[in-house]
């Protein structure tokens, strides 16, 4: 089973490039995990669907949301919690 992390970004959002790199690194290191990066200016319907207000918004597979650019350790910690649990 592959679990998906979604990351909403936009070209104007200053923290987005950073968080994209962080997420890409995490996904590369973890099995069963894939990353979907959504540029809301291109896919506004998805932003509507997920009610995205602030950027970056990261939606973890357990529907947990992270608003804003968290550091790698923090995201890893959040992931570990439910990956272990799962």
């Amino acid at each position, binding site marked *: 089973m592959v679990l998906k992390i979604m990351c909403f970004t936009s070209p104007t959002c200053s923290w987005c490039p950073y968080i994209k790199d962080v997420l890409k690194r995490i996904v590369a290191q973890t099995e069963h995990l894939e990353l979907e990066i959504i540029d*809301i200016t291109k896919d*506004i319907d998805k*932003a509507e669907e997920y009610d995205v*207000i602030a950027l970056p918004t990261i939606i973890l597979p357990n*529907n947990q*949301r992270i*608003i804003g650019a968290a550091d790698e350790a923090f995201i890893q910690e959040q992931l570990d919690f439910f990956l272990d649990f799962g």
Partner: protein
Amino acid sequence: MIISTGIEELDNMIDGGLRTGNCYAIKGTAGAGKTVLSLFMTMGALKQDIPVLFISTEVEPDKLIEYVKSFGMDFQPYIDNNMLIVDKMSLKPQGVGLVQTDRFDLSGIITRVKKRIEDIKAKLVFFDSASAFFAEFQYEKTARSSFMDFIREITDVGSSLVLTAESKGAEDFTTLEEFLVDGVIKIRTELKNNQLIKRISVPKLRSAQPISSENRFIINKQGIMILRSEQPPTILITEEETGIQRLDELLGGGIPNGTVVLIELDGETNYFPLFLTTLHKHLNQGKGVVIHSNVHMYPAKILEEYKRAKTDITKHLNEGNIVFIDKYNRSVTAVEAREMRQLMTTDDMISVTVELMEAFEKAKQEVVLYGDLTDDVNILSESNFLRYFALQSFNVKERRAIAYSFINFNAISREILARLRTTADIIIRFSRVDYCNYIECLKSSTGATFLPKIVKFRDTIPLIEIIG
């Protein structure tokens, strides 16, 4: 482009209406009526065929549409015609866990709102409420500073943005948004005589000089009403000529608007010359006239008296410039008539007052009111009469109207006369000594009183001549 709010008095307060490309904040404490005002403004714009985007951060769209119905408005046809979008946007959708950091911006909501604006070409955007929106952020400061971009981006596309924001303290004037917005509409509630009274003001307005006064703000099922408080006297006091030149001179130009004139007479002096002369003058100036009719003041009698002075006011009667309010002809049976003293109760006073207000409402021009108080004072109990007089005086002053109240000072007690004199702004007294009539002014709002002067009655208008 200027968008009318649909509330005339509010338009006056913000220099004609909302400007596109500008941002306004409606501030007020919880329950002040910020959302209701926004909804009424939405309807006002829709009625002018201006597309509106209404974003709520707290309430679901269907609930809001239902709520609007309780004020007799229906948003649905406008939504169906792509004139209106009602949407909810909040940071935390239901059932979602949230972790926040302080490294974010609001470009998500900006992009979504701009898309919505584009969809219906919205010229007016409501954001209700900014306070509730910020409250969802753990790092509120970051959200607020990013909100500047939101304001800038929305106003840059040529829409007018209206935010609602809760003010916490009584004089909370330093929140970030207030520096950014072009206008602030403030609703304040205060407890007065166990009643919550709302007041509305415009403390900031970039496009024009803000109006310094605070007006009454009333929300009921019929809608929103803004009652203008009395403006500073230097601006609004204008004087109306009475038609008797010498009297105007003696009073210093005439009778100021918003004045209750008490005319005291002995039982023998006829007040019709003064009544007819001033009435004629005011009608010719295009004023509406309300007459509390009684046994003397009724249409046929007035026409007859004018005929004697070779003047015809049928035209004014036909055009409805004169409204008669009949106090004593309200379904009085023989039995009731015997109990007349009890009959004219507080309810009757209220109904007369309501009729007067309606007459005021009908008359678009400024209004002059005439009434003979002598009968009232005999019919009503003393306290009821004084209350009635005070009530009517308030109405007159609020509407900047002029009231002429005639009273026979011989027929009432000294106490009542004294109290009437306190309420009245101008007191004119007619008296008679040895078959010679005199007029004098005992009190006036401008301080221009004068000693008894000889009065001569004439056959044609003006029916009164003051000598000396």
